[in-house]
């Protein structure tokens, strides 16, 4: 029984990643699990300049979900190269770096430098973060801009696969998916969070300092599964482009839902907060499912929805 997958030209131990921004730089997970058990690891978004991020409160729990407005807080490219690349070099799993920026030039500058680093397996292009005012969200909803930015980043990504992360808050996600593919994306990941708001009725103010935040967690899972299935059927399968499914994955059963819907890989985000071993447990659970159901390779399950 084989749970390895091929994903945009890389062979992965298994389909399970941790999602960008939800697992620090992996060392935070090590008291709870073996990071090498993962198919892959995605870093927090990296931007050219360091970003302090938003003031607090940056999160608020909602029904079966949470809002976050971290604001892409990150140490910036230079410190990332100095401090984090050595950590990444230690990791025995495929590391994707999540790229953020305000302009196409930003994205290109970051990618160019990182493309040279062997320890990095691939890139995830974040064009869809809802918490940055002049940030990616404008790129993320306009097919023309998606194609354009993808093209520019792909050009400097060297031989590393480029995965484009899609926002769910569009009228037709197949259109944005197609645009990324037209721009040269090697894979697509979906979904990012949904823009949302929680209000404190005592103070009559939004709970988050940033007013709005991105909704993640189990609450959004059924929408994410649908969107993965839609993109798989309408765009990705015909184009032969693999998908990473995410949004509310908490258990192996959730992960398998995404895989059946059309995902080749999955990523675990919010679930790692209450259960930092969630991603490793999901790897095990997928393995068990395959054994119990007589599935010789997890690859057979991608898109196997009847």
């Amino acid at each position: 029984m084989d749970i390895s997958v091929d994903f945009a030209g890389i062979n992965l131990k298994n389909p399970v990643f941790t999602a960008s921004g939800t697992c620090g730089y992996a060392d935070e997970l090590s008291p709870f699990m073996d990071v090498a058990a993962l198919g892959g690891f995605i870093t927090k978004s990296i931007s050219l300049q360091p970003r302090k991020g938003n003031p607090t409160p940056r999160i608020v729990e909602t029904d079966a979900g949470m809002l976050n407005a971290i604001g892409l807080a990150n140490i910036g490219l230079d410190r990332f190269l100095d401090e984090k690349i050595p950590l990444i070099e230690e990791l025995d799993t495929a590391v994707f770096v999540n790229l953020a920026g305000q302009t196409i030039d930003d994205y290109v500058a970051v990618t160019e430098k990182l493309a040279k680093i062997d320890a990095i397996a691939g890139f995830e292009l974040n064009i869809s973060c809802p918490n940055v005012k002049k940030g990616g969200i404008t790129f993320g909803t306009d097919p023309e801009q998606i194609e354009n930015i993808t093209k520019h980043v792909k050009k400097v990504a060297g031989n590393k696969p480029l995965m484009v992360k899609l926002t769910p808050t569009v009228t037709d996600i197949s259109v944005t998916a197609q645009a990324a593919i037209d721009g040269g994306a090697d894979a697509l990941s979906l979904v990012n969070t949904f823009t949302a708001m929680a209000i404190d009725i005592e103070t009559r103010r939004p709970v988050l300092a940033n007013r709005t935040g991105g909704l993640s967690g189990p609450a959004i899972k059924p929408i994410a599964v649908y969107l993965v299935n839609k993109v798989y059927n309408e765009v990705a399968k015909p184009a032969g482009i693999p998908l990473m499914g995410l949004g509310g994955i908490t258990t192996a059963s959730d992960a398998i839902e995404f895989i059946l819907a059309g995902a080749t890989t999955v990523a675990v985000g919010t679930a790692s907060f209450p259960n930092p071993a969630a991603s490793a447990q999901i790897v095990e659970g997928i393995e068990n499912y395959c054994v119990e159901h007589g599935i010789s390779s997890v690859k057979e399950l991608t898109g196997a929805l009847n």
Partner: protein
Amino acid sequence: MGNGCNHKHTIFTAHVLESIEIGPLYHRTTFQLDEVGSKAFADAVPGQFAELDLTAVSLPPLEKIPPKLVDACKRNIILRRPFSFADIRKDNPGAIEIDILFCVLGPATVRMTSLRPGDSVSVIGPLGNGFSVPEGTKNALLVAGGMGAPPLQHLGFYLRENFPDMNVVAFAGAKSKEDLPYQLLEAPERDTELAEFSRCDVPAHIATDDGSIGMKGFVTQALENWIRTNDPKSGSTVIYTCGPEPMLAQVAKIAISHDLPCQVSMERRMACGIGLCQSCAIEVRTPASEETVYKLCCKDGPIFDARELVF
């Protein structure tokens, strides 16, 4: 005193030994840690905290939920909740006991009130750095506002046990007598008797906004009074404080103005407690420049030096 940032934390199961209501909204729950947890907690110190998973705990019947919280309690929770310790007892090293003293505020703490002996919860801990005792400390001033009490109660016990000669004085403030999260003595004669502190021979200066017990006024005034009277020397006196942020800011200001070292326990909404999410940012000054940066309350704190904090 240990350094909490040494990744000794882990995930384990804690069993409820006892759960008591010590006031309309205050409860104290004692947990016995399993072997894994006991090992992780061997070096745990006051000021550290743990993340409790309360998602699977039942809600009490509606009529037992404070009316103001009924709506909030309908929310399905998914995240753990951070709590510091009101005490850690290591008498039995394989079955360490921790006390959590909590205030009923929302869906998780309401669920926590229905924990009964025999129930168990998943815990991640010990987390964070904890208080530290600089060499040569002679006076320790513990300044607790409202629900800032638990880690300072713990610190009281800890200092009495480990530094029997140290002069420890507590300051406890709250809106009103009912809001003091202490097991009040039957008839506290003076403003210096709070069961938790008396137990370790620590006198406590009580201040309430309405004067219903202790001095009428803010706990920060009680602190200033004490400093004015006792004129403690910088270098031998340390202030430890925990409570609502405006109070902490005031305590920090007092400490800095008297040039006394001050360790401040901060709180933030935490999604993870272990450095994954960056939700718990605390703005701090950088040594050399005007600029401020964010540290993480869960990893770099929750205890910060008063001098670095930007309130």
